[in-house]
Every structure is written in structure tokens, then in C-alpha cells.
């Protein structure tokens, strides 16, 4: 590598360089840092809720505040933590793993980040004025209508989701295009790393699912702002339509949350057992099958709404089918470990715990797929236990594994393993202490989303234990923060390939240069980097010398401030809908100004030299 390229990538520093960046790696870091910050807030929500529920008839938190915490915890963990943290990984690693210099549309990439950040800030602004939406992350009609929720609290949810959805949709189109069009020569679809497959299928799900929630949110905001009455039975509307629309989006959303985690775990397990992923092509097919079936099961959230026996039976069957490709994945991960030489790094521990916790949550999911059982478990703590096992024990554990695994590639330094392992065990014990007893609470009939409960229901003991588990997890999260900051400055220098890994990003310096690859690699194998290091019989190859590199051939996209300006315009359009109480001039004026900013910056954008 040339010294000039190196110095070039670090000469651009300062706040302005981050605001105008179009570098996918920097945008990835921005995504990840914002997601972790939002996680802290959503985690505090959870701790407050658990503190309130530690004892029956507890008076720590008021009913309205608790309902707000329920809503904000769910909405934030999904839209502001898991999705953007996954997007952080997509951003940083997709081009590196497919051998591309950047994503297909670098400025669009920056735009989707800024829209996401503004959407997240808008949603979180509700805390500051004490108007948290208190309708649940699913915002079922008709509680969301103005007559039942007269304040602006629901508007924060509706507009937050619309703006965040826009960000995800733009990003999804970008990554879909990037993966299909910008792979290095020789990297056929079935030579892509499995994480890239998971990313690709996730983008397809996003592209197909997000328009549904966007349309639903537009209808709801029209109901609230203009009294259109889509969801108001008094005006001829239909309450259940919201629920259908929401879950047509909401169930694929579940796979949007878990598929990236599955991809990360597959990479980690292969690396640390030092074997290729077992049954790669079946893993690809099962990822696609899960994505496809994910659109056919939304009504399993609705077994109690009175759809009739046939709809219940068919949606139950479709739901059970998902267990098959998921089961295949679990056994293939175990076979990846089988015959390997497993190194128990922190990242590996997270990936292994993913298998166990996700299996557990998946199996309780099979129990809910049976409508008779579900009518008893629906909206009880059994369901809370179930989806925290798949989304926390599953998706979040995988994402933490991903952070430990790729931190050295992003920062150039390894995270502290001792601290990492302590955090892992705190998480494992705390997580299971919190969520395993919730199965018991569910069987004992404790409903979800209640801010208090009577002391004679028999729920006291398990609730107290759940709360203590949650505190343990909080300590784990604190140690994680300590570990990140300690490792950033004092961590061991990683080198290019600290884990003896298999995919192309590990052939690059840590952190990678701004232009990624000096020369775009030519790919001949799945696990290309491994095959460059090893022969089939496990003996080491001599690495081929780096091809001749001419810095003149590198073209980097110019930084641009239009993305952040355009995103701000979108925020203004939404903000106008919060301001009717200040008069129509201010309210409509703000939205129109926002629209003009969007138009103006789109104009500036298209005439800017990229």
C-alpha cells in the first residue's frame, strides 16, 4: 500500500468531515454509535419498568408514564437499536466483504443515516416534553385516534416511524443494488459470504414490508390530523385494518431483526471453529425460505381477534413451517462446530449462546403457533419471554458477538477479552434470570403491559427475580461501555487478521483505508481469504504478492452536506404536524418550508460534482 493513500484517509478529521462524510465505513460507525446511545435510553426504560414491577401495587411509576416506557422501550429497541446497529454492520462490511470500493449510492447512504438520526431524535424528544406515546410499539387502532389520545404523544410515534421507515427504505434500496451490482469479479451469488446473503434477504424484506407500515402511518396521521376516519368505526372505518397492516409489516420485521444476527453468527462460528460453514447452500436457501414464509404468517399475531377457524388453522400451519428452515440452520451451526478446533473467544461465546437462546425462544414460538395454546398465552408474560429469547438472546447477543468480532477491523485494536467474558456471563446469567421466570409468570396468567398488579395473584416472587436479573444485565452493559472505551485507547493492536478469519475484509489493514481495496480482488472461492492463506489439506500457502497499485486509479466520492440538509427538510415536514396548536400558519408553514428544503437540496444534490 502506498503511504500517500494512508495519509489521505486520515487527513480528513473534525466534526465537519463526519457531517459531510459519504464513506460507508464512517457512516457505519455513525449508525453503530447512535444505535448504542439509543440502546442506553431504551435500556433505562426497561430498568424503570422492572423496578416498578418488582413489587405488587408499587407506586414508583405512574400508569401513564409506564405505558409510555412500554411503548418507547419496544419502539426504540427495534427501530433505534437493533435495526440501525445491523445497518452499521451492513454499512461497514458489505463493501469490504464483496470487494467493492463503496456502496452503490454513497450520498444516498449518508442521507439514510441522517434521516434515521433525525427520526430517532424526534421520537426521543417526546421524553423531554413528557409526551411519550403510550399506545404500545404496535399502536393498535383505535386507541391512537385523537379522541382517545388527544395530545401529541401518538404523533411522535407516527412521525417517528414514518421518518425512520423512510431511512430504512432508502438504505435497503442502496444495499440491494450494492450487493447485486458491485461484487468483485468472480464472486457469484453462491460465493458471497453468508452474512452478505443475510443482508441481501433483509433488504428485500425491508423493501417489501416498509411501504405497508408507511401507508398505514400516513392513514393514521391523516386520521389524527384531518379526521379521515380510516380506523374510526364511528366514521365507518375499520379497527382491525390497522392490525392487519401493522403485522403485514410487523412479522417480516421480526426477520429483519433476526436475519442479520444469523448471518453474523454464521461468520463467527465458521471463523472460530476454523471450518467452513456447514451446508452453505442450504443455509442460503433456508435464509430465503424464512424471508419468504415471513410474509405468510402475519395473522398469527391475531389468533384472538375472531378471524374464524379456517384463517386460524392456515396461519398456524404456515407459522409451523417456518420452524423447518430455522431448525436446519440450528443443526447446521452445530455441525459447523463439530470437527472444528473451537477457540472460545468472547465473540465465539456470544455466537454459541445465540444457538442455545435462539433455539429456546424458537421452541416457545412453536408453542404459540398453535392457536388454542396461543389464546391462553397471547398478551401474557409467556410471549414477553418468547420474543426476548429470540430478539435479545438471539438478535442482540449476535450483534454483541459481531461487535467483539469486528471491533479490531473497525478500530485497529482488539477488545479486552477478560472484561468481555465477564460481560458475557453477566449477560447470560442476567438475561436468563430476567426472562426465564417470565415463562412461569405467563403460565400464571400475568398480562403484559400492566403497570401494576394485585398482590394476591401469586406473581410476586418471579417478578422480583426478573427485576434482579435485569439489574445484573445493566451491570453487564456498563462493563461493555468500559470495555469499548478502554479498548479504543489501550486495546492490543489487532493487525490485519487477528482471528485467522475467512472473508475478504480480513485481507485489509485494520482499520481499512478510505478506498478499501488498492486493487479490486478477483474471487475464485467461497471463503476467498481462507483459500488465499491455506491449501485444501490445511497447509499454509505463501500469500500472493500484492498486485501493482496505482493511486491515480482511485476515485473517491466527494463529501457532501446535501444529505444532512435534505434529511432536515424531511424532519421539518413532520414537525409541522406537531404544531397546529400554534396556529395553522406556523404549522403549515413549517411543513411547507420542510418541503422546500427537500426540493432545494435535491436540486443542489443533483448538480453537485460527485
Amino acid at each position, binding site marked *: 500500500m502506498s503511504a500517500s493513500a494512508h495519509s489521505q484517509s486520515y487527513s480528513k478529521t473534525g466534526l465537519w468531515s463526519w457531517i459531510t462524510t459519504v464513506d460507508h465505513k464512517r457512516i457505519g460507525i455513525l449508525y453503530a454509535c447512535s444505535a448504542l446511545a439509543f440502546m442506553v435510553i431504551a435500556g433505562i426504560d426497561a430498568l424503570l419498568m422492572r423496578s416498578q414491577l418488582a413489587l405488587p401495587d408499587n407506586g414508583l411509576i405512574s*400508569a401513564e408514564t409506564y405505558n409510555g416506557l412500554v411503548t418507547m422501550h419496544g419502539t426504540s429497541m427495534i427501530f433505534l437499536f437493533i435495526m440501525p446497529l445491523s445497518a452499521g454492520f451492513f454499512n461497514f462490511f458489505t463493501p469490504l466483504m464483496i470487494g467493492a470500493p463503496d456502496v452503490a449510492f454513497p450520498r444516498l447512504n449518508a442521507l439514510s443515516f441522517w434521516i434515521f438520526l433525525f427520526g430517532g431524535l424526534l421520537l426521543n424528544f417526546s421524553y423531554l416534553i413528557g409526551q411519550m406515546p403510550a399506545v404500545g410499539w404496535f399502536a393498535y387502532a383505535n386507541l391512537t385516534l385523537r379522541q382517545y389520545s388527544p395530545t401529541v404523544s401518538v404523533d411522535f410515534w407516527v412521525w417517528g416511524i414514518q421518518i425512520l421507515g423512510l431511512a430504512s427504505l432508502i438504505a435497503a434500496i442502496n444495499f440491494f443494488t450494492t450487493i447485486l451490482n458491485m461484487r468483485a469479479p468472480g464472486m457469484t451469488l453462491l460465493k458471497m459470504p453468508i452474512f452478505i446473503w443475510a443482508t441481501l434477504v433483509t433488504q428485500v424484506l425491508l423493501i417489501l414490508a416498509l411501504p405497508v407500515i408507511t401507508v398505514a402511518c400516513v392513514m393514521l396521521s391523516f386520521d389524527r390530523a384531518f379526521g379521515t376516519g380510516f380506523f374510526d368505526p364511528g366514521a365507518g372505518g*375499520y379497527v*382491525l385494518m390497522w392490525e392487519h397492516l401493522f403485522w403485514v409489516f410487523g412479522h417480516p420485521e421480526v426477520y429483519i431483526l433476526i436475519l442479520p444476527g444469523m448471518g453474523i453468527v454464521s461468520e463467527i462460528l465458521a471463523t472460530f471453529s476454523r471450518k467452513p460453514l456447514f451446508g452453505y447452500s442450504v443455509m442460503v436457501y433456508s435464509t430465503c425460505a424464512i424471508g419468504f414464509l415471513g410474509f405468510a404468517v402475519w395473522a398469527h399475531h391475531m389468533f384472538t381477534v375472531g378471524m374464524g377457524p379456517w384463517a386460524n388453522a392456515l396461519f398456524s400451519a404456515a407459522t*409451523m413451517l417456518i420452524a423447518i428452515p430455522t431448525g436446519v440452520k440450528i443443526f447446521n451451526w452445530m455441525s459447523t*462446530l463439530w*470437527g472444528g478446533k*473451537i477457540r472460545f473467544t468472547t465473540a465465539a461465546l456470544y455466537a454459541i449462546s445465540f444457538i442455545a437462546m435462539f433455539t429456546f425462544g424458537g421452541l416457545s414460538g412453536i408453542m404459540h403457533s398453535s392457536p388454542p395454546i396461543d389464546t391462553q398465552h397471547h398478551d401474557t408474560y409467556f410471549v414477553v419471554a418468547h420474543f426476548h429469547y429470540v430478539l435479545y438472546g438471539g438478535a442482540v447477543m449476535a450483534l454483541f458477538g459481531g461487535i467483539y468480532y469486528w471491533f479490531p477491523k473497525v478500530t485497529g485494536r482488539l477488545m479486552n477479552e477478560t472484561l468481555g467474558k465477564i460481560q458475557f456471563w453477566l449477560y447470560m446469567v442476567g438475561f436468563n434470570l430476567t426472562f426465564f421466570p417470565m415463562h412461569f409468570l405467563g403460565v400464571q396468567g400475568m398480562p403484559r403491559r400492566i*403497570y401494576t398488579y394485585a398482590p394476591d395473584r401469586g406473581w410476586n416472587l418471579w417478578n422480583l427475580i426478573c427485576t434482579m436479573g435485569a*439489574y445484573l444485565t445493566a451491570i453487564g452493559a456498563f462493563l461493555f461501555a468500559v470495555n469499548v472505551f*478502554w479498548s479504543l485507547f489501550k486495546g492490543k493492536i489487532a493487525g490485519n487478521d487477528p482471528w485467522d478469519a475467512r472473508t475478504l475484509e480480513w485481507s485489509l489493514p485494520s482499520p481499512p483505508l478510505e478506498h478499501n481495496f488498492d486493487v479490486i480482488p478477483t474471487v475464485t472461492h467461497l471463503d476467498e481469504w481462507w483459500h488465499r492463506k491455506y491449501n485444501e489439506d490445511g497447509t499454509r500457502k505463501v500469500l500472493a504478492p500484492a498486485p501493482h497499485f496505482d493511486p491515480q486509479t482511485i476515485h473517491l466520492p466527494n463529501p457532501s452536506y446535501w444529505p444532512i440538509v435534505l434529511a432536515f427538510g424531511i424532519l421539518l415536514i413532520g414537525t409541522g404536524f406537531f404544531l397546529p396548536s400554534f396556529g395553522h400558519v406556523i404549522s403549515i408553514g413549517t411543513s411547507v418550508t420542510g418541503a422546500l428544503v427537500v426540493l432545494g437540496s435535491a436540486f443542489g444534490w443533483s448538480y453537485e460534482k460527485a
Partner: protein
Amino acid sequence: MRRKTGITLGAVAWLASAAAWAKKFDEMPYKIDGGFDVPMSTIAGLTEWTRDINYVYLITTVIVAVIFLAVALPLIYTLYKFRAKEGDDTPPKQLHGNVILEFLWTVIPAVLLIFIAVPTWKIIFKHDGLPARADAIKVHVVGHQWWWEFQYPDLGITTAYELHLPENTPVDLSITSADVYHAFWIPKFGGKTSAIQGNINRLSLTSPLARLPEVAGGDYYQGQCVELCGTSHALMRHVGVVHTKEGFERWVKAHNQPPKVETASQREGEQVFARCIACHAIEGTPSASIPGDKIGPNLSSFGSRSHLAGGTRKNTEENLAIWLRNPQGLKPGVLMPNLALTEPEIAALTAYLRQSTYKTY
């Protein structure tokens, strides 16, 4: 050492919070009750429906438990057997897959699922979408923010909070909502049903047997609204009350009897109640003949109810007084206004509502 300080601080914080909560827990009147035969247990139901649910539940639980062991035990063995040995740096054999194995673990779960699916469908079609039986007791169940209304159209009874039923009788519930989305649930009778404005969901079940010769006004089964329905969702509770057939007839006969106003205090209470009749009705009094929907619960036979304010407090004089002094204090967001009653008015109204109406418990 910043790391060690962090860990120690964390441990101390956790132990301190554990001790604090445990002390409060220890001071509570109700002790540990971790068993499954609790008031709202989902597996200790008493109707044919709950027995059928438990049958599917048992099969499913056994199958998923076996699958979990089939994953967990081999996983633990694999982790132990294939751990990297110290100093061994050569990569293991690069195995890419095995078609037969992968075929097997596609097919075996599919077969296992059939054993869950078939009983599931059997039970769905046995209980869902049944026509109402002619001899069934009809009840209209209406969810309100935040209380349940029960109307017996054939008996001319409208009540709240308590769903009274005779034992071992077919029941036909028509469930809907007057405002937001609610869900009706009494776990020991069966699963949930959504209560949605503009929709009517029908639910057919057979009530359980009365457990004892009727001593205390019937057997009480706890229920609760299970769809987030606004601020006081957690306080939207209800009960099913199962009587012997004779006990139920007594309840029906007595329910719409007008209050017996005898003492001076009760007479004064009757006067005070005139301020409540825009929202509340009591059968057999002028309040019942005011046309239009009442937005508050029907208070006929109020003295017979075991609890008040959506099941949050026992129906005692003190609790009713607390409620009347400040309804918002017991149930945040409730529509009932604070009428700013004086203490003597509260005492009179309490005497009127609690003592002059029929009492079963």
C-alpha cells in the same frame, strides 16, 4: 485498575439493590406463591375448552422439550470434544456439508410438527365458530375504558365487573367494545377474545361446575383486560362468578330489585345519587328511566359486588369513600369526575349504594 473498580462497583450496586428489594418483599403481607394453581393460571382451567387447550399444550411442550434436549446435549458435547487444544495451530479438516444429514434434519422436524398440527386443528374446529346453542345463556360483553359491562338481554339485567353464570351451562358471549380495543379473558374459563368497536366476537363455552354448596355468593374467577387500552389498562379487571343453578336464580331475581331505602342516611344518599344519574343507573329508580346510553356502569345491586373501581379495591365502606373522594387517585385517567362531595354526603351515598342494594357475598 479501572476494570476491577468497574466490576467491584457493579457487584456492590447489585447486592445493595437486591437487599433493598428483598427487605421490601419480606414486609409484604402476601408471601411467596410461586405455584401454578394461582387465580389466573392458564393451565388450571375448569371448562372443556381449557381441558382441550391443555391437551394440545401437553403434547407440544413434550415435543419442544425433546427437541431442545436434542439440540442442547449434542451442542455441549461438541463444545467439549472439539475445543481447540493448546499449541495446536493446524486447521481442522475443511468439511463443507453432508446432504443426507441435512435432508434428515429437514424431514424429522417436519414430521414432528404434524404431531402438533393435527391436534391443534382438531381443537380449533371443535371450539371456534360454533353456532350458538338454543339453550345457552346470552351475555353481551362490552369493554369500556376501564371496566367491563355485562348485559343479559333475555333476563333484562345489565351489570358491571362481575359476569354471573349458573354452573355447567352453555354460555354464548357476544364481545365488543364501546370505545378502544380491549380483550376479554378469564383464564380458567378459556382463551382470550378481542373486544373491538364495530365488531362482535362470539364465544361459546360451558361454564364450570360450582365447587361447593353455595356459601359465599358463588365461585370467583379472576379475569383482566389483556389489550393495552389506555392509562388504567392494568386496572381493568373483572371476575366470572359461578353459582349453583338455584344460586343463579336467586341472583337474577334479586338483581333488579330497587334499593330498600330505610334509614335517614340512606334517604340522604338517595338524594346525593341524583347527581350521579347522568352517567349511572339503578334499576327500579328514576335513574333507570332516563333515556340514552349511560357512560358509567349500571349500579343495580352494587352492594353485591365484591370489588369496586374495576376490581382494584374490595367493596368496603372505606374503599368506596376513598373512590368517591377522588376517583383519579384509584384509577388514573378515569372518566368519572371528582364531584367534590362533602364527607357527610360520601357517608350517605355509601350507605345508600352499599347497604340498600342486594348482597350476595
